[in-house]
């Protein structure tokens, strides 16, 4: 029963494929799998830390200023993640550029605080945050995987396409992101529909 809080973020309420939240980082940093993984993990870290703190403080945060308090807490963890990446992984930090500080406005995070962590006990909030974070990371990896293979002929920066493969540059451009995301969402819905049919 409690496990449901964890798995719902990965499939049934996937933040990208079902809730269609956090589109800005999803479309912008899914050109390569490495970027997708880093972005996903950074977001998961921020989501998890903020959920824990907000769930602990949920009874003392006044309702009128809750959004302001959430934002301060989220911004603190985003800055921590930003400094950490700059110090430990300067290359990744450079390629993600402004998208790390922009996690502050990722609506997945504020959305989970408002809808879940501010109303639920700490343990449940932790499961919810990890599930949502992983769901976000997995969606980014699938999206970035398709785009990286077609646009650069590589996966995780390893060449996998045969010599002489013509790169589909459009897949690295915004148009490629929209097309791939649309196709992935329809595939996802199709699988869900098939699942329901076989059950009934």
């Amino acid at each position, binding site marked *: 029963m409690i496990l449901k809080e964890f798995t719902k973020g990965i499939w049934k309420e996937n933040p990208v494929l079902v809730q269609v939240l956090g589109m800005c980082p999803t479309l912008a940093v899914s050109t390569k799998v490495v970027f997708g993984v880093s972005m996903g993990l950074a977001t998961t870290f921020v989501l998890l830390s903020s959920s824990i703190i907000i769930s602990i403080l949920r009874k003392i945060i006044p309702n009128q200023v809750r959004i302001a308090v959430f934002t301060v807490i989220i911004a603190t963890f985003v800055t921590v993640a930003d400094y950490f990446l*700059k110090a430990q992984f300067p290359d990744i930090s450079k390629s993600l550029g402004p998208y790390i500080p922009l996690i502050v406005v990722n609506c997945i995070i504020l959305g989970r605080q408002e809808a879940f962590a501010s109303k639920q006990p700490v343990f449940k909030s932790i499961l919810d945050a990890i599930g949502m974070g992983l769901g976000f990371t997995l969606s980014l990896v699938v999206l970035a995987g398709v785009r990286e293979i077609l646009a650069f002929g590589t996966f995780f920066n390893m060449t996998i396409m045969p010599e002489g493969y013509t790169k589909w540059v459009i897949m690295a451009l915004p148009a490629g992101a929209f097309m791939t995301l649309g196709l992935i969402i329809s595939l996802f819905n199709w699988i869900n529909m098939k699942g329901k049919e076989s059950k009934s």
Partner: protein
Amino acid sequence: MKKIIHILSVLTLVSLLSGACLVGVYKATAQKIVDNQKKATKDAIFKIFPEGKDSKQIDKKDLEIFSVTDAKQELLGYAFTCAGNGYQGEIKIMAGIEKDLNTLVGIEILESQETPGLGQEITNQPFKDEFKQLKTEPNIIYVKGEKPDQPNEIETITGATISSKAVVAILNKGIEKVRQEMGEK
């Protein structure tokens, strides 16, 4: 009244804790971040001058320039940074130039936000190699869709003409500045 005090105290407390936390993180990482930037600069210099052993920043107003020496302390040339607008954002380049300030040794792209797969090709070796031993007199020029036949010519990247042109323009401006500043001696 009680409500207002509650709101004020929670906001103050959360902000204070957040500030304290950030001071700690900043203290722990600031040095490392500065070191990383210094290392990136050094790496770029020695990629341009593979025989280079040592580099020293020359004290110049609004120009970041380094003298590069080899193992025998002999001057190989100068490395300088220059920046300007690309297609999507600022491009920052580290360029190496010989002692006579006429021939480029090579370039490295330090920062760029060009389109992946198109403009970002300026960071790839084939494009950077075009600047090796490139003459800069009177300045660098580019050709489109044909092989360069002059010693001061480079070919733009197909589909990334604006980014290629930007690199040439930034370099020309940077070289001019270097000549002005270094010629004074």
